[in-house]
């Protein structure tokens, strides 16, 4: 009887570890750009998962009407861990976001229990006249509900 219990425990432990190794989670990372009071008309940034088994599976637009549409990105970025996204709006300055705004959301598939580590780099941001402006890009991983 004892032998059966030990054997059963070994198999159960191996099964649990195997499941943890192959477990797939879907997460959403919100991307924000803060133009510091200036009208944000265009931006380009690079998002990358630095560690963990991460694949980008979807990209959607932001919260403001000016950036509601999904940004431009290379379709080859799907199923990869790196993407360059960019968008612009030809709306008047008064209709553009001036404060911190969510410009996009990136959906990722994470395999395994290791928490992914992300990196974000803003390449350029501009106002409604095309003039480059100093802005800050940040990201927040949305909490699972």
């Amino acid at each position: 009887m004892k032998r059966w219990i030990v054997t059963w425990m070994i198999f159960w432990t191996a099964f649990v570890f195997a499941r943890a190794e192959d477990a797939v989670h879907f997460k959403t990372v919100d991307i924000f750009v803060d133009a510091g009071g200036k009208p944000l008309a265009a931006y380009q940034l690079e998002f990358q998962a630095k560690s963990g088994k991460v694949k980008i599976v979807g990209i959607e637009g932001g919260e403001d009407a000016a950036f509601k549409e999904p940004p431009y990105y290379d379709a080859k970025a799907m199923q990869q861990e790196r993407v360059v996204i960019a968008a612009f709006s030809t709306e008047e300055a008064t209709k553009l976001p001036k404060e911190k705004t969510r410009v996009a959301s990136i959906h990722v598939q994470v395999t395994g229990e290791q928490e992914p580590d992300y990196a974000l780099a803003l390449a350029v941001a501009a106002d409604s006249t095309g003039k480059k402006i100093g802005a800050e890009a940040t990201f927040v991983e949305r909490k699972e509900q």
Partner: protein
Amino acid sequence: MPDQDENVNEPQPGSRLGRALGGLRKEAVFIPSAVDESVLRQAGSRLAQIRAQRSRRQRAQWMAVAAGIVLAAVVAQTVLHRSGGKQFEREDLNHDARVDILDAFQLAREIKNGTAHAKTGDFNGDGRVDAADVEILARRAVSLEKGGPS
């Protein structure tokens, strides 16, 4: 034996030619110093000419080498420019030495304002400047194949 053969053509001391040669004056020939100086002056002048010619030839050779290097550099620049740089420059509408979303944004604003020109903004070659051309620029800006943001 060979000595005897060589002596055959030499004037013998007792011969007429030998006597005549023996009677020649043995004193040094006097050359006036003015002639000496003149010869030296002319020789110096000729040597200076030769040196100048050599110097000119060397200078010409170096100039030819330098011209060759400059020509090679110009040709290389032109070839590189044609192979990759020209297209890059054409898409760089705001002339900031990189193709990014701001170039697409500029073209979109020009289309909106009616100031777009087919010469600079027609990227798909359909004779018109429209949203399709903006799309081409934007896709190029986010392309991963160029190694991230340019």
